[in-house]
């Protein structure tokens, strides 16, 4: 497999879902029920090609080569295979773009392709009978296309372009059932909140374009590495990093822009699994990892803090939610916070690793919830019950018996998200927590809050996940609907199995307790920062560490550390593992004590700490606060503007017209009375004299002769 072929495979992987979109949007009505199968087959092909790309990129070597042909520059190296070409080629503006496949992209391609394929498959059954069945698959195709674009972009322009396109597909899919106002509201909210983050992203891009005149990652990074800073200022470089990261805050639902993701659960559940759990929301993490080399120490601290706040905040909210999907949504927000936090503290590999493991188990959790909701919905339909909310966990219970396979897979992936050993979640979460510990040790001070938030969230996660599991699956059915649920067919169960199996440790590391022995840390190595040394963390400097014999392909990685951080992380591994197991175990234990054995009553506790309970249940009042401030201000201001325009500006216009008109009337009257009066006066006077004189005009010859003679006499008299 040559590098060129691999890139072409990448392009095919990018474009095939677009084909699915085109087919379903234009011919959807014609192919009708088959559109699901068509789209799923296309995605199957995408999955195969992605796997090939993944295998060859990660496990084989390509050597270095640069080929230039047909105005396209192909660059192959062990790090990245990429092509670059000029998209907008003008003297006034030149924008080079291209696509690149490095290990990060190759792994991400498989994640997107597999989950997208499974979700397509799942949806064939889940969406059956929907009036806009083919439209649904069209949107899924559009989404997969855009997401692959983000993955393959090797420049900010494509990144931004596809960034917006996933935003649109997310908008369309959240509001897929647009007859419901809540659904179209949620779509609108998602898009607008993301736009706020995207504006920041775009400002970051403008700063970089202004400074470097290019948008290719390579070019920008090498320019920074040569010491060229935007506006010659380290602060602006930090700001540029933070602005770009704003995009991630929006897309990955980080504090303070996390509010859109829980509402996004209005979309069909498989969409939640694909877009709002596994892939699109991880795009922010992916972006942060992609441009990791340009973050200064200050920018990384900012990122770590945002991640830690998000992880903790969302975990506290998830504790009290009663909507099945909303619990999972807040859990997603929390886990995304983990990933962001991990990148921020310097545990780059683990942050991305968690993205991958989380993608599998969170997709499984959502598809599991989809399975439950589908069953509840059908049971309610069967019973003719239109009042029972099929998503409210208080209406469930006892599903363990009616839906055994859904339960088993759900249980296993719940263990994975809680970070129980033998699961992939343990490997990645443990790595992140070790990273935060190492970070706090190396930096000290308030940075200790970050591991504290991390560990606290781990405990909360274990608690709320088991709360969800116990309330909905254990005990006795709380409603007739729950009693009459039936296990779904294989189309729905198969994705659950596949994703659950992928959550076993052995895919990633032979040692269930240590991720560092697996292939993943070798494939994903923290990129060398391009920021001037004095502006990055000393402990992250790859060349700054004494024992730094970089050996990416060595099996004895444990003796060679990339940098001081990695060593500290290695040493924190066991304390972190011990602590996280203890905390997660406690969380699970309490969940059982509360909800299974009912030794403590959650309601009494809620009453005792009603303020905290309400704070959690009302999601820290974020929506209320935003509605009362930003939204109210904007809407109010727009109203004032519209009124101002109508009354004041247009008022001035109409006022001046009025004045002109009345001045015109005045002039008119003046004209009529005074000037015309004068004219008429003269005319009248003339007329008056005329009327007098006219008595002389008798019309009789004798009179005229008399006048003539008189005149003549007078003339002679005067002249002589």
């Amino acid at each position, binding site marked *: 497999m040559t590098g060129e072929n691999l890139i072409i495979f990448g392009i095919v992987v990018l474009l095939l879902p677009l084909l699915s979109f085109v087919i379903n*949007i234009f011919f959807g009505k014609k192919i009708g029920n088959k559109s699901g199968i068509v789209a799923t087959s296309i995605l199957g092909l995408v999955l195969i090609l992605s796997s090939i790309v993944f295998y060859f990129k990660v496990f084989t070597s390509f050597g270095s080569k640069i080929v230039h042909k047909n105005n396209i520059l192909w660059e192959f190296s062990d790090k990245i295979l990429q092509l670059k070409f000029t998209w*907008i*080629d*003008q*003297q*006034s*503006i030149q924008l080079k773009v291209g696509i690149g496949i490095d290990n990060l992209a190759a792994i991400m391609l498989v994640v997107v392709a597999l989950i997208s394929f499974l979700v397509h498959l799942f949806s064939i059954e889940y969406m059956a009978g929907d009036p806009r069945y083919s439209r649904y698959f069209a949107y899924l195709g559009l989404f997969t296309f855009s997401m692959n674009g983000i993955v393959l972009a090797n420049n900010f322009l494509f990144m*931004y*372009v*596809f960034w*917006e*396109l996933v935003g*649109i597909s997310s*908008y369309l899919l959240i*509001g897929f059932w*647009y*007859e419901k*106002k809540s659904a*179209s*509201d949620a*779509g*609108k909210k998602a*898009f*607008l909140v993301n*736009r*706020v983050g995207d*504006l920041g992203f*775009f*400002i970051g891009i*403008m*700063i970089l*374009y*202004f400074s470097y005149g290019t948008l290719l990652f390579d070019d920008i990074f090498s320019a920074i590495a040569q010491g060229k800073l935007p506006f010659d200022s380290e602060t602006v470089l930090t700001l540029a990093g933070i602005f770009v990261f704003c995009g991630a805050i929006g897309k990955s639902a980080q504090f303070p822009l996390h509010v859109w993701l829980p509402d996004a659960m209005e979309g069909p559940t498989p969409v939640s699994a694909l877009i709002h759990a596994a892939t699109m929301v991880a795009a922010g993490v992916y972006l942060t990892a992609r441009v990791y080399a340009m973050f200064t120490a200050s920018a990384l601290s900012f990122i770590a803090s945002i991640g830690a706040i998000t992880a903790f905040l969302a975990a506290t909210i998830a504790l009290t939610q009663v909507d099945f999907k909303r619990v999972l949504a807040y859990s997603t927000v929390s886990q995304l916070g983990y990933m962001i936090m991990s990148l921020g503290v310097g545990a780059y590999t683990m942050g991305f690793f968690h993205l991958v493991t989380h993608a599998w188990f969170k997709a499984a959790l959502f598809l599991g919830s989809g399975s439950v909701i589908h069953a509840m919905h059908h049971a309610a339909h069967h019973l003719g019950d239109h009042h029972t909310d099929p998503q409210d966990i208080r209406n469930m219970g006892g599903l363990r018996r009616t839906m055994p396979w859904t339960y088993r897979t759900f249980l296993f992936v719940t263990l994975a998200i809680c970070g129980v050993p033998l699961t992939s979640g343990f490997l990645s979460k443990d790595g992140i927590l070790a990273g935060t510990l190492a970070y706090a040790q190396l930096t000290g001070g308030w940075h200790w809050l970050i591991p504290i938030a991390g560990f606290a969230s781990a405990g909360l996660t274990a608690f709320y996940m088991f709360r969800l599991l116990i309330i909905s699956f254990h005990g006795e059915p709380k409603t007739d609907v729950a009693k009459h649920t039936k296990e779904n067919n294989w189309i729905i169960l198969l994705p659950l199995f596949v994703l659950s199996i992928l959550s076993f440790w052995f895919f990633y590391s032979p040692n269930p307790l240590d991720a560092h022995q697996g292939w993943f840390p070798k494939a994903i190595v923290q990129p060398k920062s391009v920021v001037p040394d004095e502006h990055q963390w000393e402990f992250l400097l790859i060349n700054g560490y004494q024992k730094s014999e970089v050996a990416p392909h060595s099996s004895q990685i444990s003796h060679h550390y990339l940098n001081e951080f990695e060593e500290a992380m290695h040493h924190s591994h066991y304390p972190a593992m011990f602590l996280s197991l203890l905390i997660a175990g406690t969380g699970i234990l309490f969940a059982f004590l509360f909800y299974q054995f009912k030794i403590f009553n959650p309601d009494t506790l809620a009453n005792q700490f009603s303020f905290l309970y309400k704070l959690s249940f009302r999601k820290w009042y974020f929506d209320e606060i935003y509605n009362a401030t930003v939204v109210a201000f*904007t*809407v109010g*201001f*727009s*109203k*004032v*503007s*519209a*009124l101002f*325009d*109508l009354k004041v*500006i*247009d008022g001035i*216009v109409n006022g001046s*017209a009025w004045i002109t008109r009345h001045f015109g009337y005045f002039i008119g009257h003046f004209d009529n009375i005074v000037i015309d009066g004068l004219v008429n006066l003269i005319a009248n006077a003339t007329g008056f004299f005329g009327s007098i004189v006219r008595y002389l005009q008798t019309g009789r010859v004798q009179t005229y002769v008399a006048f003539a003679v008189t005149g003549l006499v007078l003339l002679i008299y005067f002249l002589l």
Partner: protein
Amino acid sequence: MQSSLGFPILTWIVFLPIIGMLLVLLVPLGKDERSREVSHIIMRWITVVITFIQLVLAVVIYLNYNKSLPGVNDVSTFQFVERVTWINANFPIIGQIKIEYFLGIDGLSVPMVLLTAIVCFVAVFPSFIIEKGVKGYFAMYLLLDTGMMGVFVALDFFLFYVFWELMLLPMYFLIGIWGGPRKEYAAIKFFIYTLVGSVFMLLVMIGLYYSVGSFSILDMMNPNNYKPDSIFAGMHTTIRYIAFMALFIGFAIKVPSVPFHTWLPDAHVEAPTPISVILAGILLKMGTYGMIRIAFPIFPDAVGYFQSLIAWVGMISIIYGALCALGQHKVGQRDFKKLIAYSSVSHMGYVVLGLASMRPEGISGAIFQMFNHGTITSMLFMIVGVIYDRAHTRGLDEFGGLANKMPVYTGIMMVAFFAAIGLPGLSGFISEAMVFLGAFNTYPYLTIASGLGIILGAAYMLWTLQKVFFGKLPDRWNKPWDPTGKKFPSDDLIAREYVALVPLALIIIYLGIYPNPMLSLMNTSVNYFVEFMKPFVLIGNFLSGM
């Protein structure tokens, strides 16, 4: 350079509609209902054919246009030039008056010529709905076409002025006769507002003539042509600054920039759909075109002096226009058309901001934005027209769930809406991004502030989308639009609506994916323009203390 096409193509493209107008006027109106209907059909198709030929001519121009020649102030690099003396007379007191029939195009005008031809062609189809005074309507429509096309190809200031005024008259009647309930008010407002701008322009034009001794715009751009001791002689004089502001305001009225914009919402609300399309699609561009063709290069010193003011005007138009558009959901008649009208104010603000940047990216972006706004907003107004023709109302609150009743319409609408929001992959994104990239160079903070316009733009568009297209269909629209099936055989789009909307959608998508064909047209001229302006602008900046 004269192009070897062998015939005066610019004259043809400008005056062809006049021929069409005469043909329309010659069509006899039948006595009875039936023959009257036949003559209406003939008149419509005459207009279709004439505007189509005009479009073909525009494509011929596009294909034969040499992209490496800059134009701007150099007559030898203008293309398809036609230059004869039109009026040359010696008058008592005022002296010699020499006016030329001087046409030619460069990279600044070619996109506008194309846009005019495209929009004039597609806007004929929504005109089919006109039932009253069909003859007068199409005659006026074609006269308007000539006026607009003339503005974009004239290189003699007097001739430019003649075309500018020529356009005014048919527009006045088209709004005033075929408009909505407050048509007289809107038409007079439009007329007087533009006339105020024209007066400014006229005064400056006369001053320039006496300073330069020629009406040629190109002569006016060369400081050496100014007679010593004439009023506009020298650079950076107060009188030149005043003259520039007069021209700028005259053109800003047309754009329209805040605070000279209030004629636009009224004109749009009252104008019939196709006239709204032309108004937003072409007429507004005459304002920004006037800036870049006349005001800026003739008074480059003043551009430098007032540069930040111009950028502020752009920024305020972007944000204020967007806020007013958003406010339409809560205030006033909640008119769909009024909302789109305000969105035009906002989107034309990007053009002004891009021009103010005086950077190649920014100015290319601005001209590209003029073109894109022309296509996108034309679509938006036709989209409003589609439901207005059927439901006879445009209230934002009166609809809902149209997505189910009219799926194809909704799909096409989404292309236009998302293009207006600036979605990548559609043309609006590229021009807005270029404007931002250019303006960021010159005015980083103003540009960041203007970025709020992107968020507000998404807000009012998505809000509209939700109100009109999503949700449940109100019961009153449950029946077919036209139970007889004569006018609207299906609930969704009909053939002539496809013909009008689909080409625009394709242009928007094509230029969004591959903008080079349009950008390369203007590229050489824009770079030349920026280089030509630069020294004056720098001194102007210095003098203004920026």
